[in-house]
């Protein structure tokens, strides 16, 4: 089928209703940016899963970042989105008004130059992310160790992918297909989704991030409805086995651990922490499991698990807007609520 035929197929599909979850924040953003929801039949519903790293970070982690940023001679370094994520009481950007020191960077490696320039300041990187980002933190540690820098540490909230999808399926998310994360699969390999596909008899299709790539992947998912298969529609980047070098680098510094997901609780083996021999580079990441909502009515947890769509949350677009986020999903441009708000 060519692109026009696929567009027509997806628009006119009148088969059994399908609930498809995209598990990657970049997919959520790309779907919104390309206006894909409006190109689908009412029988195909897209739901955003727990794939935006800042959206799944528990409040205790944000609270710890704020605490560090308020400590004298300490500076928190982070990706932009993390600045506005609410903790149990406040966010980094709100705290900046009362003396917290937090700066935004586009690359974790920027912290090296900052640490060299100001040796008297402790720099803490807010290391959140999935399999895609973790190798960068490993490279950062390589550099920190090589340069013998003692004023750089990580506060980690690292997550790994397949386990959380298993958790969703076991808890009745009732999905008919998963648009599998292309960037994560580039590291892990597409085979990592095979056991889940077979176990739940649901298709997983790995997709790239261009609008046309997503349309092709959605077409494959609809076609494979009810089949426990994994398809790789992003072969220029993703292989079945993944990137061995990146995996090895990550294993050198990090080890699997239980992880707390915002609104979903602790899920065994779905996180990574620094290995004991590198713990001196850790800024207190262990046991940050408290997860208290700033606004009790926030439904981020149900939205992340595909049980509710953003518009069904009582706070959505009323109290909760991108400039006044009540939950993490409204903060990041990759968050499901932010995405839904932007395309209202």
């Amino acid at each position, binding site marked *: 089928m060519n692109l026009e035929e696929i567009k027509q197929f997806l628009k006119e599909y009148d088969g059994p209703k399908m609930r498809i979850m995209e598990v990657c924040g970049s997919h959520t953003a790309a779907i919104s940016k390309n206006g894909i929801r409006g190109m689908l039949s009412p029988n195909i519903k897209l739901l955003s899963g727990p794939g935006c790293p800042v959206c799944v970070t528990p409040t205790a982690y944000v609270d710890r970042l704020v605490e560090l940023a308020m400590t004298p001679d300490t500076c928190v370094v982070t990706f932009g989105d993390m600045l506005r994520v609410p903790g149990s009481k406040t966010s980094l950007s709100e705290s900046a008004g009362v003396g917290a020191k937090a700066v935004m960077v586009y690359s974790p490696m920027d912290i090296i130059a900052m640490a060299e320039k100001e040796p008297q300041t402790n720099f803490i990187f807010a290391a959140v992310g999935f399999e895609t980002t973790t190798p960068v933190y490993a490279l950062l540690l390589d550099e920190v160790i090589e340069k013998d820098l003692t004023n750089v540490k990580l506060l980690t909230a690292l997550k790994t992918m397949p386990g959380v999808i298993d958790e969703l399926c076991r808890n009745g998310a009732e999905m008919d297909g998963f648009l599998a994360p292309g960037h994560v699969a580039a590291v892990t390999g597409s085979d990592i989704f095979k056991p889940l596909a077979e176990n739940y008899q649901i298709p997983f299709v790995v997709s790239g991030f261009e609008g046309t790539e997503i349309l092709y992947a959605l077409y494959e998912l609809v076609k494979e409805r009810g089949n426990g298969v994994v398809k790789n529609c992003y072969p220029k980047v993703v292989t079945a086995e993944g990137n061995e070098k990146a995996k090895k680098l990550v294993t050198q510094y990090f080890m699997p651990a239980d992880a707390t997901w915002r609104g979903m609780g602790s899920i065994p083996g779905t996180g990574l922490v620094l290995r004991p021999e590198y713990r001196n580079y850790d800024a207190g990441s262990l046991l940050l499991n408290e997860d208290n909502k700033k606004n009790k009515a926030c439904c981020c947890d149900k939205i992340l698990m595909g049980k509710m769509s953003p518009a069904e949350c009582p706070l959505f677009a009323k109290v909760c807007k991108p400039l006044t986020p009540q939950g993490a999903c409204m903060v990041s441009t990759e968050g499901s609520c932010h995405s839904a708000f932007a395309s*209202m």
Partner: protein
Amino acid sequence: MEERISMVHGSGGAATSELISAVFAKEFANDTLNQMEDSAVVVGSGKIAVTTDSFVVTPMCYPGGNIGRLCICGTVNDLLMRGAKPKYITCGFILQEGMEVSVLQEIVHAMAETAKEAGVTIVAGDTKVVTGAGECYINTTGVGFVPEERDVSAVKVQEGDVVIVSGNVGDHHAAILSSRMGITNHIESDNAPLGEIVEALFTAGVEVHTMRDVTRGGLATVLKELAQASGTTITLEEKALPVTPQVRDFCGLLGLDPLYMGNEGKLVAIVPAEQKERALEAMRSAKYGEGAVAIGTVTKEEPGKLYLVTGIGGLRNLEVLQGEGLPRIC
């Protein structure tokens, strides 16, 4: 003259006078300014446009320009967008202690050159010095004369109009960001005075309903505000949007959207559909308007809405920029 600015240069005494004569008077000299009075007395007109803007861009000097060129372009362009002919400009400098005088000279020189290019006279100025890290802020206030017959305003946008942008979007924002991140590329700021484009439109007899310069917030924010102000629906074609491959790749890499990136030398003009070709021809014949293209249409079915027909044929709703975007780009 010392090599760096110190607090004494803001004292109002001898050191201030030295700074003024060594740096400012040399570049800005004209009959009005040379009088060195407390205020400038100038000749007026019937309809006057007035605007003010403060410039805090960091870094002060970036590929394609500096804060000096920017502070003239920004204010001049705001005057132009109401159909005014820019005439006078004032400038207030807030210099931070430690600023290199050679950098200040470079900035002041760029201001003088850009003012000449834009046809405005710098008629008054002020300098203060504060503690800091050797940077500077500049405020400029501009006055322009509006020809009696011109009436350019957001509320005039109506069904049947077309949206034209004067060239590639996102360049200024991408240049500033590249500079801050230490990335070497070929992206340069588009900072430019847009007087030639505006005069070309009026000379060609185009009935310009409204114009806006596409600065902070980017194209999407500017057009969303116009749709709201006029109660119309604006629909853009993604395929028609002019973005250079360099800026597109740069945005792709950093997860940025060219629709929300600021420019300092681009305008959107909204004109009746039947005058589209005439408007395009006029704009393309003017300096800085060579890349003008039509990018969208105006209807009225959903007042206040801005849509983008995406490259793959989807429909995307566009809102104003949420959050801070990139601070201090102008």
